[in-house]
């Protein structure tokens, strides 16, 4: 268990950096922004590290810092300009279909309200159980479920018939 020392902090961050970066990437869809998010998360973590020994579920706690950092950044709107092309201007038809699909999907997802976006990514891309998502967002499981449903509806509305799900078994 971490006891609040610097060496524990360094060891912890090195052990979790890859997983944190992956989650950050899935949340925001951009490797550079993912690095910024992880940097912010581990900075916040260090600021609180002194009393970290009292945190029962450290990974869950750090995850929650990451998700909140993502929500904060979305809220401030600093990333708007750096997101991919909006659905109105889809990638050129010559692009590889997978790339195009990803671009359109990511752009659509970025237009879904931030919390709903986080719920969709955490549940369906990070495969996290509803309870974990609820903890990360500081809300009830019922709220996670309703946000899932609203987020999905928003995503469908934004996408229209632009995406065909060919890969569903």
């Amino acid at each position, binding site marked *: 268990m971490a006891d609040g020392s610097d060496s524990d902090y360094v060891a912890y961050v090195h052990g979790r950096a*890859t997983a944190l970066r992956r989650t950050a990437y899935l949340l925001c869809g951009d490797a550079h922004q993912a690095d910024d998010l992880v940097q912010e998360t581990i900075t916040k973590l260090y600021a*609180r590290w002194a009393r970290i*020994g009292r945190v029962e579920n450290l990974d869950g706690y750090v995850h929650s810092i990451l998700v909140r950092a993502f929500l904060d950044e979305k809220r401030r709107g*600093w990333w708007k300009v750096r997101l991919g092309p909006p659905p109105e201007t889809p990638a050129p038809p010559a692009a590889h279909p997978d790339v195009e699909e990803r671009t359109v999907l990511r752009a659509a997802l970025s237009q879904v309200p931030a919390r709903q976006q986080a719920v969709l990514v955490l549940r*369906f891309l990070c495969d996290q159980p509803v309870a974990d998502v609820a903890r990360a967002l500081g809300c009830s499981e019922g709220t996670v479920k309703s946000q899932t449903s609203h987020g*999905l509806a928003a995503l469908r509305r934004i996408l229209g018939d632009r995406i065909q799900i060919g890969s569903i078994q």
Partner: protein
Amino acid sequence: MTNNLDDDRYAAALLRPLAGEPSGTPRIDVARAMAEGRRRRRSRWWASGAAVVALTATTAAGGTLAFSAVGRPSPEPRPVATPAPSVTAAAPPARPRDCRVTRLPTGGVEKALVTGGDPSGRWVVGRSYPTLSSGAARPLLIWKDGAIAETVRIGGSDQSFEDINSRGVAVGLTFEPDARPYAYSNGKVSQLKGGEGVAMAVNDAGVAVGSLGPVYEGMPARWDSLTAQPRKLPVPAGTESGEAVDIDEAGNILGTIAAKGKEKSGYLWLTDGTHRRMPLPDVDGTKATMFWPESIRNGWVVGRSVIDTERERSFAYFRYRIETARYERLPMRSGMPDGVAANGWIIGTAQRPVITSEGNVTTMLPGYAKAKGRQDYLVESFSDDGLTAAGYSSGEGLSNHPLLWRCR
């Protein structure tokens, strides 16, 4: 296309193309995170209005001293070595003079800090860190007239008293593991009603304020007494979260609320039954994005404005008068405001605590000379006469000393 699929399977299939690993070499800089994290710990800027988690640059490095060294609370408070300043002084001084700092006694415990104090300047509350192995339990301390009056143990973890009134009634919180509001009165610890929540302040009438629900995501609330059911404070439609952070003797309540998707900004619930958002001050011709209040006293509020631009967040310091609804900008040398006295004087934190008195005259309080190395100072309490303050130092090695400043 989704007729035969439930939402979850549809969502998983829809989003699947986005799965993948980030490319390139990570640009994560652990050393920078530690340097920046250390700075934030000191300035606490990230804690914004949520004083509950306003961390204290602390670690459980309390050494090996046993807490049993702290004496039993004495039934009679010790004689006052230095008389407490009197609020009824005939001619209030125009500025604080002869300010001195003393370390509050900790019964031999190396590491302890202050978390609040009362308007008379006689009572101070804090927390001690007896040993590394004591885990999450933090014995809470109540000082009266500069001496330990009580040592209080509350269950749960990361306990703290957030405030105490001039009758010695303290309120605070613990995590069990959800936050729970607590009170201490006449030697007894009791949980405030209402379930999950925190108590942040109490006035001399015994009215406590705080929030109900999860920390960060709760709603502002008040308890009319320590045994009363809480009442949610009214908030405008669309409010997603909020908390009350302070209450003055008249019963005016200061807090913050956040609308959906926004950060928190100042809010007032006044004794005439009205409640409203604090206006946003102008800072050099630009309207602030938010106002983060810290303290309310006798119709004064102090805090800081927040201005967000594309790449940075900047702050300016203000004193606000409820009666006139006017802001008065404080000079940067006043430091970040922590508290306001009944007489309108302000205590802030710069390199050391600073009292700003009439005419924006600033008086820097002395540092604690016995602390080794560079120290940062955090102020948690300011008396109504503007002459007594309590707080703590935070230095290298994550040491803390609970401190009391007295001026004449």
